[in-house]
């Protein structure tokens, strides 16, 4: 029972979507399955929040190392959650002024908006901006022109890096029009549209076959790893 039902659900959910692809009459079923999927995706956000709460509450209650930071995480989580769910400081929708909670959850000026604008946004954006530093450090440490393959990789990278800025235009501006195909900015275009396309297309075909076979294994119940070990 513990395995048969999930396996049936998996197969049903998947095959409904596959059938819907080929039979227009079954399209409605496919839509229903996809909408349920979307709803579960929203529930997964709640699950994520719940999990975070569970882990950090335990850290705080156990007084594990760095539990103070867990406290900050919990405070940030709870404050954002409360002001967001209760729509604190949000005015109603102008068309329905009598319904207090009808306004947009992220209305400009509300505390939830403030937390997004001045905490979420700068923090996530800066975290990603840090990658610029790490990629510079990696460039210095990792790329050695040891063999033909490495030289091809580095050469391409150099052409792209130059060709996608004004440096490329500037460096080969002296080339006559008859050789314009060799100007760095044009080389960049050819590399992208021919060589890169060829390489990525081969990778894409390979991945597509991989995904198709994995999906089929899951739907047919051959791959059951997502059900866990069964010890629970």
């Amino acid at each position: 029972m513990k395995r048969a039902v999930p396996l049936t659900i998996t197969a049903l959910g998947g095959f409904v979507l596959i059938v819907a692809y080929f039979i227009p009459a079954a399209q409605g079923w496919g839509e229903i399955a996809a909408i349920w999927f979307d709803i579960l995706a929203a529930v997964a956000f709640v699950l994520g929040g719940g999990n975070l709460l569970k882990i950090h509450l335990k850290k705080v209650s156990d007084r594990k190392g760095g539990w103070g930071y867990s406290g900050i995480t919990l405070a940030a989580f709870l404050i954002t959650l409360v002001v967001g769910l209760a729509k604190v400081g949000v005015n109603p929708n102008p068309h329905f002024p009598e319904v207090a909670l009808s306004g947009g959850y992220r209305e400009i000026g509300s505390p939830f908006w403030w937390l997004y604008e001045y905490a979420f946004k700068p923090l996530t954006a800066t975290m990603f901006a840090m990658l610029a530093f790490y990629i510079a450090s990696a460039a210095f440490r990792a790329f050695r022109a040891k063999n033909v393959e490495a030289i091809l990789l580095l050469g391409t990278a150099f052409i792209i890096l130059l060709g996608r800025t004004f440096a490329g235009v500037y460096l080969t501006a002296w080339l006559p029009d008859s050789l314009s195909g060799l100007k760095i900015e044009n080389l960049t275009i050819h590399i992208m549209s021919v060589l890169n396309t060829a390489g990525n297309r081969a990778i894409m075909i390979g991945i597509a076959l991989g995904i198709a076979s994995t999906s089929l294994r899951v739907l047919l119940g051959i791959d059951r790893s997502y059900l866990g070990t069964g010890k629970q």
Partner: protein
Amino acid sequence: MFEFLKNLDKRWIFLLMFLAVAIPVYVVGKTGKAFPEVPTMLSESTFQAVEELHEGDPVLLSFDFDPASEGELGPMATAFVKHCAEKKLKIFFMALWPVGPQMIDDVVRKVIDADFPHLVYGEDYVNLGYKPGYEGVIKVVITDLRELYTTDDKGTNIDEIPMMADIHSVQDFELVINVSAGYPGTKEWVLYAVTPFPDKVKLVAGCTGVQAPLLYPYIPEQLPGLLGAIKGAAEYEKLVIDKYGGEHPDPKYLEAKRRMGPQLVAHLLIILLIILANIIFVVEKRRERR
């Protein structure tokens, strides 16, 4: 000196990178000068895809990105909306990323509220908002938009929005414009919207540098126009501003073009770092041989 370089503390590299971006940002910001841009074919075809539409044609703009990739994609989003507004198209916004609606809000304030205040919400543009479900959302809206989007982002019933009258699914749009930072994004739009309905759905996209090379195999059959990273944005900006910017274009529409300054210096730094590392590598090898 050699030993210092060989065992270079990575913090020196961080500092160089910081300066390589900060100094040009400052200089470009102070002087307002930027490098000239020559649009490539792909930017041209993206521009043309919007350009050939007629007044009142419905376009769907899916903003599938977040603040983390705003540096690359924000200028594209701005330019796309400016272009659509200039062309008097009916603009429908939606988002597959939870923070996408915030990106839509920002662009609406920056472009529509500021420069096209005559456009009426619900008649000229509408924000359908975000729905969770990744590609599952595309899978539904491609055949039935109203089943999932029962209201717009503000909670107004979809049937009471005048510009929604003729829209039943994504197939009813003349063009889909996707600004994408990853999953779900342009790839999913190609997979679940364009490929199954090639005659009904036309897609152009602006994407991050990381995704751009991966999307080239779709060009041009499944993806007729693509703006790759900040350079693509700068080229598209130029096309839009050359045609619609007037004599003294508002500098807010030239954000990507300005950002190409720090871009150039930082690219040169990366190249120099790689060359330097290789010189060290060769010298060291020779020493070992001795």
